[in-house]
């Protein structure tokens, strides 16, 4: 694990345009301060998980009494699938090991801008001010007393797959696509809380601010988010994980992950975007003509085969090709799979549930005859949008836009069964 982490760092592109800055974790150059400490913590935790002792199973479990109940359950110690750090501010979900559409909270990808804060829930407040009848403050207890609502939704970092724009970089699907996860999110509808506070009619932009050491902020267009926005305090049936924004986060289903402000402490209403660093110099998409697209909120439809995928080795014979598809614009309508590098396509089976703005599981039964092949998947969402090929995407966007890479992913199966990432 330690070796693969170091290798990943070496392989990451060192590039000014990659504002996710994966390459910048150059340990020699982290001179002092928080950076070095966080990096050391990441390395230590990775080492520790790799060294976790394998359990000893009795030869016949029917002849040995089992363990007593536990206060907070753990998965079987035989299961070792983990998030891998992409840098000291992001970790990736092991999509290759996932089943169904939900991501376990403990494996939900992470992206933070200056670490995961420790916040006492009794001290936490959400303040709402600006163009409102009166500035208002809510405790977590207040927010939980509002009518609760739950929904499933994926969150995808807009930098997911960014490492693939310029060159073949990721070796596994975790590395190429691991910045997306799906959870059940519970909280109070933003609309409900805003009705309570009384937002003035001329308010059109909402600044959301986190209580982390980046005081992360985004300006968000109110009219486009108001119907679906949730103030979430729970994920998959329990309070949010610290790295997912405990005790409170914003959820904007289908929008780029960074807009779903974690550790949410403040909402301010105004008539224009506040033009924070995150929506000017950071989460903007540079085009070949030198202009940059701003407020590119929606995550467009994307799919990827998770099995077989990069780094795996397969045997000839039956293979159930499996993968995930999702769209920030709604439901997945169709997924097609190609086993010949995109020359022909077969319709995959979509597995229930097929929910809007959620990972959707697809599969296709297939027999591999042991020859070199290239597997691909492409999805269509309910708006009619079709996931583009890499060539079509690059023809419009060039290679310097950093964000929103949603091209068709290709996995090559070599004659020896080894699966690897290719740009076909």
């Amino acid at each position, binding site marked *: 694990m330690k070796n693969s982490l170091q290798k990943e760092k070496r392989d990451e592109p060192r590039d*000014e*345009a990659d*504002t996710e800055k994966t390459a*910048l974790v*150059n340990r020699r150059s*982290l*001179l*002092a*301060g928080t*950076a070095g400490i966080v990096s050391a913590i990441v390395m230590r935790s990775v080492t520790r998980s790799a060294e976790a002792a394998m359990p000893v199973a009795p030869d016949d479990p029917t002849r040995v009494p089992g363990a007593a109940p536990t206060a907070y359950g753990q998965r079987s110690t035989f299961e070792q699938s983990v998030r891998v750090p992409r840098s000291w501010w992001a970790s990736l979900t092991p999509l290759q090991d996932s089943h169904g559409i939900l991501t376990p909270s403990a494996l939900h990808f992470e992206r933070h801008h*200056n670490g995961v804060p420790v916040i006492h829930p009794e001290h936490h407040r959400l*303040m*709402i*001010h600006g163009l409102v009848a*009166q*500035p*208002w*403050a*809510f405790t977590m207890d*207040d*927010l939980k*007393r*509002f*009518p609760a609502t739950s929904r499933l939704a994926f969150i995808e970092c807009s930098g997911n797959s960014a490492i693939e724009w310029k060159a073949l970089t990721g070796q596994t699907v975790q590395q190429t696509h691991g910045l997306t996860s799906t959870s059940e999110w519970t909280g109070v509808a933003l609309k*409900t809380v805003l009705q*309570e*506070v009384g937002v003035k009619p001329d308010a059109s932009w909402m*600044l959301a*601010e986190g209580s982390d050491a*980046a*005081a992360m902020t985004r300006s968000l267009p109110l009219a486009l988010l108001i119907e679906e926005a949730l103030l979430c305090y729970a994920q998959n049936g329990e309070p949010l994980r610290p790295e997912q924004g405990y005790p409170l986060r914003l959820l904007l289903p289908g929008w780029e992950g960074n807009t779903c402000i974690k550790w949410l402490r403040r909402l301010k209403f105004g008539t*224009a975007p*506040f*033009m*924070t*660093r995150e929506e*000017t*110099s950071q989460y903007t998409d*540079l*085009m*070949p*003509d*030198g*202009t*940059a*697209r*701003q*407020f*590119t909120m*929606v995550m*467009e439809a994307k799919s990827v085969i998770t099995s077989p995928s990069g780094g795996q080795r397969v045997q000839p014979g039956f293979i159930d090709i499996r993968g995930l598809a999702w769209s920030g614009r709604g439901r997945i309508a169709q997924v097609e799979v190609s086993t010949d590098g995109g020359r022909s396509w077969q319709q995959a089976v979509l597995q229930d549930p097929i929910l809007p703005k959620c990972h959707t599981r697809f599969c296709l039964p297939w027999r591999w005859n042991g020859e070199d092949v290239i597997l691909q998947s492409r999805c269509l969402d309910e708006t009619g*949008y*079709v996931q*583009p*090929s890499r060539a*079509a995407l690059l*023809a*419009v*966007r060039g290679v*310097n836009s950093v964000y929103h890479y949603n091209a068709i992913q290709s996995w090559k199966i070599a004659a020896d069964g080894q699966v690897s990432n290719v740009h076909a």
Partner: protein
Amino acid sequence: MCTRNVMMMGLITILSVGILWSSEAADPHDRMDGYGLGRPATDLDVQHWNIDVAPTGEGLPPGRGTAKQGAPIFATKCASCHGPTGQEGPMDRLVGGAGTLGSQKPVKTIGSYWPYATTLYDYVYRAMPFPAPQSLSSDEVYSVVAWLLYQNGIIAEDTILDAHSLPGIRMPNHNGFVPDPRPDVPRN
């Protein structure tokens, strides 16, 4: 006739169930007239957290600084991550890159990319220096911002930055941003 009556009754039943069902589907929460939750935020609450700075300059605090004053602050508190001249890294490059955005190797810096000078004040105070965010005084922030703008050739070394002058600075890439045109990729 009998059959028709039974069919009519059936239809009426179906319709009634439909009506009942739809009235049940209406969320009774919608009839609530407010929940009486939360409390007014005090001026102190608002003052404490209201740290954003808009392009109009709204939110800029009193204080002032020049590039000359900013140089030693940058050297002490910023250079270890951004390099002595703001170009060497290892973290984000802050200076240079003019005219590169449309090239094969764009260099996105404050000078080449950032559209508003006010964002610099907001971000430097909010999130920098990385190990100690929100620790700089307003004079220090104005000074560091002045140094960064001076290094990028946008202001003179002795230009005084304050709440009045900062919003008036026009950044080179001010007009470089466009709205989201997606979906933008033609079908394969």
